[in-house]
């Protein structure tokens, strides 16, 4: 009986790596979590309490990795937030402004996430629509890059530093993030594209996206913590602990890689990956009749 009915150890570790990588790479973690088990015909009971507890553990591992990576930034941001609250005004200090930009960007995704997530998942969290959304995710990133080039390279529009964004821009990035409620659309991809279109450089747009990810992933995982203590959760205890550690390590490595990547590169390779992977998945699902 043990974990075979929920998820095997090997499957658990593969899902942990997948979570750690795809949560931060702009390729949709939710999309991959739906597509990979379907394509490999894993007999995973995704609706069971034990599996949900396992998923919560993976998200906690990812969130902890982000906190570890941006630990100093978070301390400075918390100080900035407190200073502005005491003063009753958002000053010109970059950490104060970025802290409130994070609040502005988190509110839309929190509201829409809590109110709409279960309905959207019920409608779209099936392999076939997910494969199409993955293709759309790639298309959105390519379109975003094209618009950014038109804005900055052709029209000579100046870039802005992250702390120069207005609160309205922060809300817009937050709304773009909310597109990721659709499984197959990447949260980080949507946020980076929105940041680019609000005149950020790739490096700053990615930093904003990763900082925004921390409260979102933490809150989503923290609200589901009771599932870790569900009656069936103990059957995946080993898998959950090992998975959380592995997801954390891969998430840390991913964010370290991506922050370097976006210093000199753009979203195009990830966009093409999504288009090819989504298209292939769609073709396989249709021919195998899995949808």
């Amino acid at each position, binding site marked *: 009986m043990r974990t075979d009915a929920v998820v095997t150890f090997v499957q658990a570790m593969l899902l942990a790596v997948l979570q750690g990588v795809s949560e931060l790479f702009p390729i949709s973690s939710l999309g991959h979590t739906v597509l990979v088990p379907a394509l490999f015909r894993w007999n995973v009971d995704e609706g069971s309490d034990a599996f949900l507890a396992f998923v919560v553990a993976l998200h906690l591992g990812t969130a902890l990795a982000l906190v570890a990576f941006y630990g100093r930034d978070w301390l400075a941001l918390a100080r900035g937030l407190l200073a502005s*609250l005491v*003063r*009753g*005004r*958002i000053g010109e200090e970059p950490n104060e402004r970025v802290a409130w930009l994070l*609040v502005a960007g988190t*509110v839309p995704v*929190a*509201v829409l996430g*809590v*109110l709409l997530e279960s309905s959207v998942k019920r409608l779209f969290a099936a392999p076939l629509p997910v494969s199409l959304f993955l293709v759309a995710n790639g298309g959105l990133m390519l379109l975003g890059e094209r618009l950014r080039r038109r804005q900055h390279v052709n029209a000579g529009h100046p870039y802005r530093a992250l702390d120069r964004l207005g609160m309205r821009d922060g809300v817009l990035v937050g709304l773009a993030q909310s597109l990721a409620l659709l499984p197959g659309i990447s949260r980080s991809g949507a946020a980076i594209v929105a940041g680019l279109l609000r005149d950020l450089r790739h490096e700053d747009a990615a930093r904003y996206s990763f900082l925004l990810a921390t409260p979102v992933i933490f809150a989503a995982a923290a*609200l589901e913590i009771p599932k870790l203590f569900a009656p069936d959760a103990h059957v995946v205890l080993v898998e959950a602990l090992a998975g959380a550690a592995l997801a954390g390590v891969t998430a840390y490595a991913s964010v370290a890689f991506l922050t370097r990547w976006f210093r000199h590169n753009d979203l195009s390779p990830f966009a093409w990956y999504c288009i090819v992977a989504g298209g292939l998945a769609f073709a396989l699902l249709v021919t195998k009749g899995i949808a």
Partner: protein
Amino acid sequence: MKQVAVILAVVFLIVAVLYWTGHMPWPPGVHTKHGILFAVLALLCLVWYRFQSASSTR
């Protein structure tokens, strides 16, 4: 705007309590997450009030 901030904070707090006690008609039942969300929104409205009152006293 200060009054709007306070009114919104009170409304959000009431909605939060209604969600926690299962008295909101949509969706039916107790919804802890919805309650937490509206409590946080109420808190943010109070922060907005704080910013408004600090700027009006300057």
